[in-house]
């Protein structure tokens, strides 16, 4: 745990390598991951797609990684990577990272503090326009104390200084990229032939077919178990699943519906459940879509939003649409965020209370059609859903039916994914079924729900504004005490849930389809491939493709 008043040295955590020691002790094997999407570019500062992220996690190291519990307050639970240790300044406004002297780039060059400073400069450069740039804004500067010590400086203290310094950036090689003009980084050959520091080295990228990486025998934390990992790309998701079912691939990360049963029925395959950071919700737009400067005639009313929320049976929605592939939502958070608190209670399903509340608000059933009216206006709204998501379309129909029972008319509007994204992000909608993928930081909620993010162009799509919520969040992200942080966040969650800017429907559960040969280890909720170096395929279960192109074995480095 962090003690801001003192300079502390952080001891090496034992996590790196212990799982390896426990496993078979034999290296080898090829893991073929079947995926429906190709990478855009394998260049951490520029990309944000899922496949690129999975590959980059193997090729490029961070200074440190959050532990399985995903704590982000202070440095508790973080596991060393390129930084073998770190120390805080007395005033807590800087952190000095001591780099592992054994770390080398895949071309053999040593990793230095200049690389760390260069990486921060890239991530924060407006010309580079990194999608992660807003997420490193809290870092004031990075300086080089000596060749193996990089110092991160902050303008103000905060709970997530350490997280900000380590989580968002994968360290990049200055000696290979400094000569490339910043505006031309996107087209630099590096993005097609990356050179990193990670447990695996880049081998090849056959456009839209496969990305291959191989074990780095000189990895400073010890050679990974697998010889090779191949992302085999099949744009049609059904074809991607079939590759696992036919034995051509070993892993498919996102089984859906009947595919789960198909995999479970095969004796050579296994269904691997793992945690997800995704949550889905029904969002009410509190601004008038036709005139965004004016409040919505319906959803600006907090009491009305609460009444509608009381009329939605979330449990039956989740059961009917997702079955075991999701659990009930818990608010603008999910159960894997460190500040999640199980005592938080959402608005219940209480249709009778909802009807009484609507009556009290003046929305009464007057006509034979059973719909509620007030001042000549029927209570109703359009619900926007993407055609690309079958579950959300099913949810829309069920919500329409539940609202009808309340006397509320819902018209379902369907659009292709891009159109729906465009309309929701420009707030051209009344209600929409939406989803968010969280990163481990509970402070990420600022981007989606605070008043500041409700400005045009911001990501608070509901236009929700609450001074109390903002204050709790502000207090939470600036306290250095994890207990107080959690208490502030709990109050913030309770506030927003009571205000009902959305109906928190579900938290996704992920199921991978995998060959039983594959032994996955430590799948983190926000990034299931982050510990891929620890996965293994036992020697007695290997098949022909496991023995192709093995990287030369080397004794593991001493930690």
């Amino acid at each position, binding site marked *: 745990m962090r003690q801001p008043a003192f300079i502390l040295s952080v001891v090496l955590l034992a996590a790196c390598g212990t799982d390896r020691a426990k496993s078979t002790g034999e290296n080898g094997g090829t893991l073929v991951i079947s995926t429906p999407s190709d990478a855009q570019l394998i260049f951490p500062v520029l990309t944000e797609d899922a496949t690129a992220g999975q590959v980059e996690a193997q090729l490029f190291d961070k200074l440190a990684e959050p532990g399985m519990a995903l704590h982000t307050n202070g440095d508790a639970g973080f596991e060393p990577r390129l930084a073998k240790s770190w120390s805080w300044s007395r005033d807590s406004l800087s952190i000095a990272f001591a780099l592992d002297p054994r770390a080398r780039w895949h071309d053999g060059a040593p990793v230095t503090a200049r690389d760390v400073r260069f990486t921060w400069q890239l991530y924060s450069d407006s010309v580079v326009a990194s*999608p*992660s740039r807003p997420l490193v804004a809290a870092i004031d500067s990075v300086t080089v104390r000596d060749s193996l010590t990089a110092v991160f400086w902050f303008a103000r203290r905060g709970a997530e200084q350490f997280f900000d310094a380590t989580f968002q950036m994968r360290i990049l090689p200055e000696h290979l990229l400094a000569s490339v003009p910043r505006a031309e980084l996107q087209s630099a050959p590096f993005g097609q032939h990356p050179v990193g520091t990670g447990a695996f080295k880049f081998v090849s990228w056959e456009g839209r077919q496969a990305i291959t990486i191989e074990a780095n025998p000189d990895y400073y934390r010890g050679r990974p178990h697998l010889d090779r990992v191949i992302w085999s790309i099949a744009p049609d998701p059904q074809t991607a699943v079939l590759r696992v079912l036919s034995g051509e691939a070993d892993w498919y990360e996102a089984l859906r519906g009947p595919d789960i049963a198909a995999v479970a029925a095969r004796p050579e395959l296994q269904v691997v459940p793992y945690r997800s950071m995704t949550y889905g919700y029904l969002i009410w737009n509190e601004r008038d879509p036709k005139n965004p400067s004016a409040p919505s005639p319906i959803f600006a009313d907090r009491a009305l939003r609460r009444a509608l929320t009381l009329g939605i049976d979330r449990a039956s929605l989740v059961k009917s649409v997702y079955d075991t592939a999701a659990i009930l939502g818990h608010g603008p958070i999910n159960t894997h965020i460190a500040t999640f608190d199980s005592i938080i209670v959402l608005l219940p399903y209480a249709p009778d209370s909802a009807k009484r509340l609507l009556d009290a608000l003046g929305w009464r059933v007057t006509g034979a059609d059973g719909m509620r009216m007030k001042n000549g206006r029927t209570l109703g709204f359009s619900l926007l859903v993407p055609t690309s998501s079958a579950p959300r379309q099913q949810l829309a129909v069920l919500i329409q039916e539940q609202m009808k029972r309340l006397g509320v008319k819902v018209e379902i509007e369907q659009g292709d994914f891009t159109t729906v994204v465009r309309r929701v992000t420009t707030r051209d909608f009344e209600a929409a079924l939406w989803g968010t993928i969280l990163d481990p930081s509970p402070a990420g909620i600022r*981007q989606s729900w605070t008043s500041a993010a409700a400005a045009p*162009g911001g990501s608070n799509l509901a236009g929700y504004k609450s001074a109390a919520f903002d204050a709790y969040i502000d207090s939470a992200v600036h306290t250095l005490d994890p207990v107080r942080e959690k208490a502030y966040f709990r109050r913030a969650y309770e506030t927003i849930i009571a205000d009902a800017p959305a109906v928190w429907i579900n938290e996704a559960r992920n199921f991978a389809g995998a060959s039983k040969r594959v032994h996955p280890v430590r799948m983190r909720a926000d990034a299931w491939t982050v510990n891929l170096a620890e996965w293994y395929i036992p020697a007695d279960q290997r098949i022909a493709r496991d023995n192709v192109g093995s990287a030369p074995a080397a004794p593991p480095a001493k930690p």
Partner: protein
Amino acid sequence: MTRLLARRAAQGVVIVWLVATFTFVLIALAPGDIVDATVSLDRSSAVTRAHLRAELCLDRGLVVRYGCWIRSLATGNLGWSLARRRPVSALLAEAIPNTLLLMGLAIAGSLLLGLAAGIAQAWRPRSALDRGIGAISMFFYSMPDFWLALILMFLFAYLAHWFPVSGTTDPAVYPSLGFWGRFGDRARHLVLPAGTLILLTSAAVSRFQRSAMLEVLAQDFVRTARAKGLSEWQVLTRHVLRNALLPVITLLGLSLPGLLGGAVLVERVFSWPGMGMLATAAVTDRDYPLVVAATVVASVMVVVGSLLADVLYALVDPRVRAG
């Protein structure tokens, strides 16, 4: 002959330009843009998204955007794919050979199979053989391409494990193989997608070939050939087949657009990284430089295919050469 080809080529250029412009306008008017489709809302700022839109001319009017595109095109720059972060020309250079390989094989295979089936039917019209081949042809002729692709995949890849599910090679073993091993691996991966297209197209070829053969068989010069004492096989192959090829050549020229269309879905199902798969992904992503470029390439392929059909027609029929 030369004048005919020059005229057709000029028409082809105009057609390609019209198709490209029409596609550009349609894509530009569609709701949503590539920045929405490819840049994460949760992680990127409004400033970043605005910067990207300005860079791609997306914040300008339709005419200015068209001007941007034409200017780039005139300098040989097909544009930059934001969804794939690569020059469009590089993406096309990867995809075109794969599509040409698949289509070339499909055309050659369907021609051989279709001609053989048509000849066999014409050889014994109204026989059990004729009816049997006719029924099989009709079965494949009426089947949707993606459906046939899925059925073949299910039978021969999923159940029998005879052929791979998808892709052009097995990435896990291909790099370690020798020349013949690589050739065999590629051939195995070609069987199902090419087989699908061959079955679909040869059905049409055989039906056309049968009709053309029967028509020619009734003509006087065939009776003369038989009267000279030629065997039935010689009559069929030397005299009837050559005269009956004209409608089939026309059909092949006309079926090129259809074959391209079919290849889009077949490529998608078998994850064959050709033009069809690239184009469908580009449409989904609103990657309009890539969509327009893919459309231009597809229309060029169709125009060239039609031109090729004209040339073949002229070669086979002296009346066309004479003008």
